[in-house]
């Protein structure tokens, strides 16, 4: 019985062994090739409308329906996000920043990720949280 409890404890606490470093400056980690990518849906209102639907389904639960951030999660209307290139945002959506709480969304088709970015571009700037 003791051996079983020890094994269960090992399984539950194993994550502590996997904590890795994260610089938190994801913008600097985006490769030049990705940074330079352009949104194929840029300036298309229909794509932004589709992106809004997907934003509400996927992103609003953490970033808020108004994209101003919920429970200390970052605002997507900040200067930092609004000044990021489409390519940087696409890289972040695909890769996430797992050690900082942002999951990767690579399993969503790429076109849908670009549509979300098209929607983010329609948001007005707000003061950074």
């Amino acid at each position, binding site marked *: 019985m003791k051996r079983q409890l020890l094994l269960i404890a090992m399984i539950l606490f194993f994550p502590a062994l996997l904590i890795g470093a994260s610089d938190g400056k994801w913008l600097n980690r985006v490769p030049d090739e990705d940074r330079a990518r352009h949104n194929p849906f840029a300036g298309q209102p229909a794509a932004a409308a589709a992106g809004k639907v997907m934003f509400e*389904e996927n992103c609003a639960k953490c970033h808020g329906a108004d994209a101003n951030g919920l429970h200390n999660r970052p605002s997507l209307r900040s200067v930092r996000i609004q000044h990021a290139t489409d390519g940087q945002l696409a890289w972040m959506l695909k890769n996430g920043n797992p050690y900082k709480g942002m999951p990767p969304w690579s399993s969503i088709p790429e076109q849908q990720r670009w549509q979300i970015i098209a929607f983010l571009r329609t948001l007005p700037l707000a003061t950074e949280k």
Partner: protein
Amino acid sequence: MRFVGLASFSLARLSLLAMGAALSVSSALYAQEKPYFVTYSTDLEEPGNLEVALKGLTASPKDANAFISPTIELEYGATAWWTTEVYAQGQSTVNDSTVFTGYRLENRFRPLPREYFVTPVLYVEWESVSNADKSILEITGHDGIQRFQVNNGQTRGIVEHSLEGKLILSSNFKGWNVSENMIAEKNMSNEPWEFGYAVGAARSLASAGSAHRCFLCRQNFDAGAELYGGLGDRYSFGLKQTSQYAGPTVDFRTPNGPTLSFSPQFGLNDNSIGTLWRFKVSYEVQQIRDLFKSKDSR
């Protein structure tokens, strides 16, 4: 024909109650998960989300009684790189009995901080499951149809404790997800390491999203196929005397509702059951941990 399904139905009722409770406290939902039943992709549960699922399998093996095996699954995204799960499972066999067959504790970890062409996830599971288990959540070793031809009375008392590890690999390109799992399982009694595999490929039926909320639009469907089976054990590695299955799989994410998945899977050799019918109903409770945060932190 007598169908003794009391405990099984109780399990199903319990899971439906849990899902009902989840539906009552949650808002819109979306799951990244693929329509696989056995294969894992590298998609983890989103941090703070709780998925409640009922997985079912029914089959009528050759020279054995038909059965149904429900599994209740609670999956929680502890962080963006760690998902933890608990399973409770049982089965009900025609002309036999209904039994609770055990539980599993599972953890999945994303060791790398970004996506690669092939992205890995590590999986560690502890299971305490009786030999009466018929859930076929994975296949390892020489597990085959013979086990299903034994009465529950002879197998329910034999409980095995196992530690299982998986290396999960996934690639996402051009809308497709391709996932491969390598499985190694060690029964904690004096039995050799057993091995298995699972591979799957799936994609959403629409690459671009619709500008309008819709129920039956293609973007709400995923379709694909999976193949899995045993690879023997440390002393007899290979496909000989193993069971192997393959089949198409599809899921449907109902807007603001549960995700429904279905798959008929076919045995590929004489050691396998002819056809497995799998179904799954899952629901994500969004950001359940926010319910415990103060409004001031908004």
